């Protein structure tokens, strides 16, 4: 009971501290912008730790953060292997192929109104196919190794990027297009000088959504068949062995990798679309 009430106390304390920070004059400095979510996260972890200990939750249901951290620290080699297999081989290659193909397709779709009308509704339909159904099929087609995971990722990221890019390429204002008309600019001139830059904020929207999709896709696909390495493999095997600390260590890797991946794309976005009002604050 002590620990539970302490958890409550820590929770309130965290919020209070964040409230002070967020409404202080320094709240626009990047230090505070990092500090506030960090405090929130730490608060969350402490509350989790205290609740798990206080309520004596079984280790095989929900391990405490400290246990997870210990497991993480002692299993680094395994986690690194799994990370290589799932993220570097499966997710990343699938992401690059999927996004690249989607961008090329978007250009083709954009050039032809007929294709756009026909392909986008079908595309939206295909995008609604649940991954738990497509993953076993793709594992059957592309084998157990990372190729099938990359294929799942390709299928998952293709349509978000396509739809966003097509929307972005149409985002130019009539005046901007008319200007190109008066210059008698060729298709590719107006593509590279007008439509592509104007589309970038949308393209990045798709690319950012796709980062998390790629990660989740690669991991989930491993549930349906894999070599004996990989984050999805480790998670499903560890659940079966009640090694929940290992499961959470892998989830931690996924969250770290996902956030880093997302943050990287957001950073590239910021440097390339610095001119967009949403980036100017």
């Amino acid at each position, binding site marked *: 009971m002590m620990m539970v009430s302490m958890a409550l106390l820590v929770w309130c304390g965290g919020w209070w501290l964040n409230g002070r920070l967020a409404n202080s004059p320094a709240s626009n400095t990047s230090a505070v912008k990092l500090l506030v979510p960090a405090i929130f996260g730490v608060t969350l972890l402490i509350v989790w730790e205290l609740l798990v200990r206080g309520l004596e939750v079984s280790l095989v249901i929900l391990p405490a953060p400290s246990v997870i951290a210990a497991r993480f620290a002692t299993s680094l080699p395994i986690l690194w292997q799994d990370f290589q297999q799932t993220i570097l081989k499966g997710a990343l290659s699938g992401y690059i192929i999927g996004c690249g193909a989607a961008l090329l397709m978007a250009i083709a779709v954009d050039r032809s109104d007929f294709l756009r009308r026909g392909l986008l509704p079908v595309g939206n339909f295909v995008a609604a196919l649940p991954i738990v159904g497509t993953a076993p099929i793709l594992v059957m087609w592309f084998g157990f190794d990372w190729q099938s995971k990359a294929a799942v990722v390709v299928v998952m990221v293709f349509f978000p990027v396509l739809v966003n890019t097509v929307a972005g390429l149409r985002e130019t*204002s009539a005046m901007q297009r*008319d*200007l190109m008309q*008066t*210059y*008698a600019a060729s298709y590719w001139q107006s593509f590279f*000088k007008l439509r592509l*830059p104007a589309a970038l904020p949308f393209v990045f929207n798709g690319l950012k959504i796709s980062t998390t999709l790629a990660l989740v896709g690669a991991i989930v696909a491993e549930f349906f068949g894999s070599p004996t390495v990989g984050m999805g493999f480790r998670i499903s095997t560890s659940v079966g062995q009640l090694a929940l600390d290992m499961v959470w260590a892998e989830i931690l890797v996924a969250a770290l990798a996902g956030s880093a991946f997302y943050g990287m794309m957001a950073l590239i976005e910021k440097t390339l679309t610095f001119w*967009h009002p949403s980036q100017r604050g």
Partner: protein
Amino acid sequence: MNMETTTQALNSQAAASDITPQAPVIEARNLDLTFQTNDGPVHALKDVSLEINKGDFVSFIGPSGCGKTTFLRCIAALEQPTGGALTVNGMTPDEARRQRAYGYVFQAAGLYPWRTIAKNIKLPLEIMGYSKAEQATRVEQVLELVELAGFGGKYPWQLSGGMQQRASIARALAFDADILLMDEPFGALDEIVRDHLNEQLLKLWARTDKTIGFVTHSIPEAVYLSTKIVVMSPRPGRIHDVIDSPLPKERPLDIRDSAEFIEIAHRVRDGLRAGHADD
């Protein structure tokens, strides 16, 4: 401001294109344009006939929605008339467009936010394949012309609305278009800046012998600038009156206090009012 080099370049161009002195540069015969909209057809231009000669400065004035923009867009081949005939330099507007005969200044600045001011002005030059060196000198020249020297490296959103508008004018002046079409280019500017730019525009026009089509809501501005004032009226958009200005080509700002000026202004105002009364 030193415009000599530009002037030379522009003049030589003008001389070269001086082929048929007699034929009008722009000729519209019974032009008609109807937009099909959800609420039914909109008759934006009806039976519009007009001749514009080389070196003319033509202002279009009229109530909102009378088809000023539409007419300019027809000339620039941005809109397809539904009836009548329109020729530019003896060609169809679209052929003229392909020959890059136009510089168009839109009502809003319409600068690309991902390009600096200098790169925005460079845009048409890149597209038309000017050499790098030529691009640089021209950008310098026009930036000076619109008094934006030193702002080339800024992004559009870092400039005030008036400065943006000037940049967009510079963009249209950077390449050698015979015909300059300007759709309310000074609408967003305050009177002083506007006076100043009016003077500059007149000077440029006098030097280069460009043909200019100019849309404005301001009667003094129209009278001050034009050799020909076209008063339009709406629903359907048509020409109400065409007034040829007797003012000399050389026009100091205080010409606006002259009796001649005031008389023309009165005639324009009457035409406008009549157009409104049609509503």
